């Protein structure tokens, strides 16, 4: 019944889960991006970094988490 308490979400196109009640900053922590430069989009809307810790994750959320890479 564990999954009963889990949220099914998508990060960068990949399905994964999070504990209910956690906020978006938890994802950043899991990805070890704390202190790095990144940006987060949830369901097509950008979430400012300042709000990540106050934004609860909802079941079915789709996240895009991006960084800067080399490009022309």
């Amino acid at each position, binding site marked *: 019944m564990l999954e009963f308490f889990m949220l099914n979400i998508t*990060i*960068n*196109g*990949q399905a*994964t889960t999070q504990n209910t009640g956690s906020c978006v900053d938890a994802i950043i922590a899991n*990805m*070890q*991006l704390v202190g*790095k*430069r*990144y*940006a*987060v*989009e949830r369901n*097509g809307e*950008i979430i*400012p*970094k300042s709000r990540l810790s106050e934004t609860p994750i909802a079941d079915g959320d789709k996240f*895009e*988490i*991006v*960084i*800067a*890479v*080399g*490009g*022309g």
Partner: protein
Amino acid sequence: MHETTALTIAGRIYSSRLLVGTGKYRDFAETKLAIDASGAQIITVAIRRVNIGQDPTQPSLLDWLPPSQYTLLPNTAGCYNAIEAVRTLRLARELLDGHKLVKLEVLADDATLFPNMPETLIAAKTLVDDGFDVMVYCTDDPIQAKTLEDIGCVAVMPLASLIGSGMGILNPWNLEIILDRVSVPVLVDAGIGTASDASIAMELGCDGVLMNTAIAKARDPVLMASAMKKAVESGREAFLAGRMPKKIYQASASSPREGRIGT
């Protein structure tokens, strides 16, 4: 505008007129060496998903090229419509703490990487309305280049030839019309293959040149970066110095015709 010596984009002055990309290098170390050899102050970066599972302890591009030392220019390479491009640059702005200067490129397809102009016009309007300072990759169509200026873009960047082709400037005549029509900075973007291509762009009166492959894919990228730095400066100086007129079949001696020894 194109006559002034300093390059001013969105109210900020740059001493270097060479903008470079950060893609296609062997590693970050080579990227850094080449960029510093080029003297570029504005460098483009792409925005991409974090690869889940990639080692987060590894240094990232921005560790090597910190925003404190370079003006980062996030681009929309890989975006094929206005919506993707706008989303990408909004993410870039968040990522760079509100940074407004961006490079818009909406590509038409993988085979040509040619600009998709109708989508580019839509994206440019949306981004300008959203407060971005938009430098825009476009075709060498002088009419649509002018439209992009009218929309409020801070620089127009027509391609010299296809991205990554190294074919140089295929149609200087269209560039001349653009330079004649457009008041914001005109930078040649894409198609530069070697140093003289960059010189020629600057001699035409362009305000700057943006390149990536010509440096990254030279046999010696760092040396080519130095060559490009001198090429852009050389072409700019030649433009400002005012070249001699071409004389078709009217040679004129460089030495005085008088006083030659008798026979």
